[in-house]
């Protein structure tokens, strides 16, 4: 196999397996995987900025919520169809990411983390403040009959899974193309040594902004899809917890790997799901697993695989 064939083949195989699972998974796991694919898209977006560009954000719940509310609010208050609201939600998240990026990129390191966290908190509190329209923490339900795209009801389990798979596939392929492109290699160069990238003549600020906007749009797409597929829009998704979760998913799966976010999201979801069936202290199990992984697989599950056996993994 050539250098490009291996990664392309692997990722195509993963998509084929995910499609095959649609036909064989029992109802419960079928539903769980649909949610995992949607949230893995959120993690993919986060990974683009953190894993590939080295920008550690603590405020990505803002972009997920921007997509969620960007879709949900017009559908709820203006009667927009999902066909119009979905791209609007993504565009709104991208626009917000542009604004946040333009300001937050004036900082670096810890300051960047704090600024992004503050932006996300401001977004969260804004949702609570305008409770009259957003229904704040309680949120609102998108009516089942409104949740259809091109005549296909996304409240149907089969359609939901396929829609989540398409969303994930598009985000994964886009990530794969981006990180293997010259622009993607510049992002990695920035992550590895920002000063050197600048000295080589790259407009580092522009590339970083590109990463934030692409990341925000992807996270926004995940948020908009979540509202459409699962029918609920609520401020909880803008809380700090949902800024930490994609970081955990990416760290678990392997930062800077295309498939790592999917593995991390699925691992964490099932860890909590199976753990909660065994004990009330299931978060302790999750915490212990995270500590063990940090100790013995600091590069994450797929990161370790790449380090030990498959250096070609993108």
């Amino acid at each position, binding site marked *: 196999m050539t250098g490009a064939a291996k990664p392309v083949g692997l990722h195509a195989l993963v998509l084929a397996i995910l*499609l095959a699972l*649609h*036909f*064989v998974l*029992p*109802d*419960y*796991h*079928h*539903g*769980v995987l649909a*949610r995992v694919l949607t949230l893995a898209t959120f993690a993919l977006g986060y990974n683009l900025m953190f894993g590939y560009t080295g920008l550690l954000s603590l405020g990505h719940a803002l972009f997920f919520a921007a997509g969620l509310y960007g879709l949900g609010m017009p559908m709820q208050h203006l009667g927009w169809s999902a066909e119009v609201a979905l791209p609007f939600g993504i565009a709104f998240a991208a626009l917000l990411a542009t604004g946040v990026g333009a300001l937050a990129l004036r900082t670096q390191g810890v300051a960047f983390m704090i600024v992004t966290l503050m932006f996300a908190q401001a977004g969260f*509190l804004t949702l*609570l*403040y305008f*409770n*009259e329209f957003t*229904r*704040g*923490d*309680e*949120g*609102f*339900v*998108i009516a*089942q009959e409104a949740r259809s795209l091109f005549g*296909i009801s996304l*409240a*149907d*389990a*089969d*359609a939901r899974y*396929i829609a989540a*798979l398409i969303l994930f596939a598009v985000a994964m392929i886009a990530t794969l193309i981006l990180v293997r492109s010259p622009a993607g290699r510049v992002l990695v160069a920035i992550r590895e040594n920002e000063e050197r990238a600048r000295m080589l003549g790259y407009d580092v600020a522009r590339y970083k902004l590109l990463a934030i906007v692409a990341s925000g749009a992807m996270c926004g797409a995940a948020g908009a899809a979540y509202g459409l597929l*699962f*029918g*609920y829009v*609520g*401020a*909880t*998704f803008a809380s700090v*917890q949902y800024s930490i979760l994609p970081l955990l998913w990416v760290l678990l799966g392997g930062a800077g790997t295309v498939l790592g976010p999917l593995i991390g999201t699925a691992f964490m979801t099932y860890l*909590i*799901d*199976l753990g*909660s*069936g065994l004990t*009330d202290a*299931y*978060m302790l199990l999750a915490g212990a697993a995270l500590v063990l992984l940090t100790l013995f697989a600091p590069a994450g599950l797929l990161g370790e695989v790449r380090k030990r056996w498959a250096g070609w993994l993108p």
Partner: protein
Amino acid sequence: MTEVKKTAAGGAISRRTALKGLAAAGATGAGLGAMPGFVPYIQAQSSAPIKVGFQVHRTGIGAAYGRWYDRTTLAAADLINEMGGINGRPVEIVAEDDGTDPKRGAEVVEKFASQLGCDVGFGTLFSHVVMGSAPRAGELKLPYFVVSEGHHVASGALNRWTIQPGICDVKSQVLAMAPFVSKNLGKKATMIFPDYAFGHDHRDFFTAAMEAQGAEVIKHIAIPPTETSYSKYFPQIPRETEVLYHVMVGPGVLTFVKELGEFFGPSHPPIFGFLDSLEAVDLNSPGLEFLDGTYFWEGMPRYLQSDAPDPVKFYRDRVGVDDNGASASDPKDVSTFAHMFGCWETLFVMKKGMEAAGYQTTADRQKLIEAVEAMEEMPFGDEHPQGRKVFNGKTHQVFGPQYISKVEGGKLVVQAETTAEDSFYPDEVDYTTQSF
């Protein structure tokens, strides 16, 4: 999943066909069978237990409520089983923590319906978890009995599968309180409430209810949910305030009430609070002495009243609550008495609904909802110890008595009781017109 739909990627092979093929080929053998969800679902047999999926807040902001919702639910289930179960079948409570989180709540509902083979979902309290979970319950056609107090069910925001037959909603509670507050405590009220949906419901409904009584709310003080110190908000209370109305939830409630006392010192206007502000908190905690003489709404009186009827005593004994509303085995473990009766009563409504519907298997879920919708009068007694109730099948919401208590000598003593009819308001939805 009972319906096979052709999807873009599905082509001629449906999920059901593929699953059947795999089963026939024995492909779902040892490896897959090791995972719980892969165990073939078997329809409940006539002697098998009726499984009640209990969505419980064991962790997160609702944990204090969850602990007592858990105890009350288990006590009611034990009693039902002692009575012979439902349609001759025992009741099994299948509890799962939802972390008081709407995403996890939706996952738990899916687990009940698709993996654990539960007949119904039950017991959710916090509104955002109900809102996050109800769409999935509707899609999975799982009867979803919430014990939430929120106005979300009666407002029409949810679906035909979601029903609240065991606890009154905020709107009805507030409507029933306004006449007492305006006539006995003052006509110019200042409201302090949490700055999110639950608090805003109080703000909107109580303000309107006071105006209807010829009184007014002169100041709204909203406190952000992230707040940990409350003193800075109290100077906003206008001097002309005749009655102070407060409601607060979450881990900061004790701090909130203590700081309110510190702010006023020995002299304060008449105070009327919702006991949510002090649920699971000992009324005799240091710093709460100033509450003596103030009034509270209670969903059900926490302290055993001198004239308490037998069903109330019976309920308290079965749940394991002492005369002060704390655990019979640990006086420091104060209950969420004003709310948890909802679990008890909901389970008995479910029982009656299943009996009326002749419920046998999950195929009878629709009949169960229709049977509950047909209910109306729910007389006071062992099954409804909080009081007589009236159920509105159109709005899926129950209405019942509310209690106004005064703090006297460190205990809450009931001063007035409103009737179910006092809390009626015009229907905002008719779920019975919606299809299943």
